[in-house]
């Protein structure tokens, strides 16, 4: 039972200090998500907090998923942006 950080992570550091098990660390390898959860350490915060802390603070929809790959913060749940506009967002992503 563990959560996982996927590619959508922007590396904002918000989750890292909140983990009661110090399961979250920055990853310095290209092609991998910027932060990672050590599945052996993550308890989904059981016994420490009512809610998984990383997923509670994470500002990015879809960045943290459960063991079935389901995002804890699905699209639209944090920004309130209607689904129809997500296409536009994808175009808005900044390519240098």
């Amino acid at each position, binding site marked *: 039972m563990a959560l996982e950080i996927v590619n959508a992570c922007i590396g904002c550091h*918000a989750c890292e200090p909140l983990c009661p098990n110090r399961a979250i660390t920055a990853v310095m390898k290209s092609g991998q998500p910027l932060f990672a959860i050590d599945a052996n350490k993550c308890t989904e915060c059981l016994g420490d907090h009512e809610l998984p802390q990383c997923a509670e603070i994470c500002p990015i929809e879809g960045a943290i998923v459960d063991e079935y790959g389901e995002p804890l913060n699905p699209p639209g749940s944090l*920004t309130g942006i*209607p689904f129809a506009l997500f296409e536009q967002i994808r175009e808005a992503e900044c390519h*240098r």
Partner: protein
Amino acid sequence: MELPVISNAAIPNSGCRSGATADRGALAHLPDHIRVRVQDHPCYSEEAHHYFARMHVAVAPACNIQCNYCNRKYDCSNESRPGVVSELLTPEQAVKKTLAVAAAIPQMTVLGIAGPGDPLANPERTFATFRMLSAQAPDIRLCVSTNGLSLPDAVEELARHNIDHVTITINCVDPEIGARIYPWIFWNKRRIRGVEGARILIEQQQKGLEMLAARGMLVKVNSVMIPGVNDEHLQDVSKIVKAKGAFLHNVMPLIAQASHGTYYGLTGQREPTQFELQALQDVCAGDMAMMRHCRQCRADAVGLLGEDRGEEFTLDKIDAMEIDYGAAMAERARVREAITAELEMKRALKAVPKFEEAATREETTTRNLRVAVATKGGGLVNEHFGHAREFLIYEAGPGECRFLGHRKCTPYCMGDESCGDGETVLGQIIAALEGVEVVLASKIGFEPWNGLESAGIRPNGEHAMEPIEEAIRMVYDEMAAAGKLDTVVVDTVARAA
């Protein structure tokens, strides 16, 4: 002799006090000890920002709230909105960068931490930076900006590091309005949404403001003007934050383009026009000093306001620099003294003779005139129209002129031969100059000249390299003498039609 406070409704006939001295006027309600602390601060003083430089370092990535005008996927160097940075620094790197910049730009007086997240949501990184800097460059002043949620918990520590400028972004004092600006906050180990989240945020902001004021720390309040959401409400915000001890209220326009991927941008929330912004700033300034020249710098901006030199100080470039820190600090002290002396002299010169002149103008009936000025700084008309990235807007009356604010634009000519998009860009510039009747620049090309004229704006290149307020005064007097500014105005009516 004390200068009178600038009134906002009508311009009193008290002598020309544009730009520089307008600051004094705008800050006149402050106790002396506070005014002395802010008048040389590049972010607070229109006058000082031409001379002193400030920089922000991006050490604080995490945030504890979501705002509808922010997209947390901030890593984009094409942007120049607040909260947007391309190089996240560790505290050690930030200190290194600050010392390098302060050695290369001896006018550096202020270091701020503003983001890209919330500095107080990253207390270890923020305070480590401040601690090291206070030890290694005690002459550099420190500032921090925050959304206020963690502020009450941080006041104690802020006071310990002797950080005397804190900026709180307060967009509302009503949780119902807050719910339309902040979708959620992270509080007590959970995400809290809607009105409840906004209520907690507002409480924390107000409490933090009071705690800082009680300790005698300078507090500035920033507000983002969101048409239809908080635009009218901000007048109440202004009154309340002033009553609680903020020394300055800075109303900034919402920046919301669909391409930014923010909630507001994508849902079509419109930005205020420059005109609406100024109107609100005028109303709010009746309650307290307003900061008009805010350029909404990026969170890692370096240099004099409006002039970003960040490119010169990337980490690898800094590593290659050889710096004598002691000599740099001595040089800063010398430069600072020279600038302070110059500012003092300017203030003294302006304060004296204009009052007599004002007496003779008592009976004038000419109306006010808005003038846009292209300048590189130093208080002079010294920028080509085509190169200007922003225009300073002044309002001149029969007796005085005052600085209203700046308007950003894409330069008409980006420097290449063709000036490719000239025509559309000119249209945007003209739109940004809404309400302006005269443009002063050191030089104005033939094509934009014609474009401005047909839009009813008078281009004027006759005052190149002259001090801004003197140039405006001459233009005003000339137009007044020609009867173009008589109170019954045909000119503006014709233009509006």
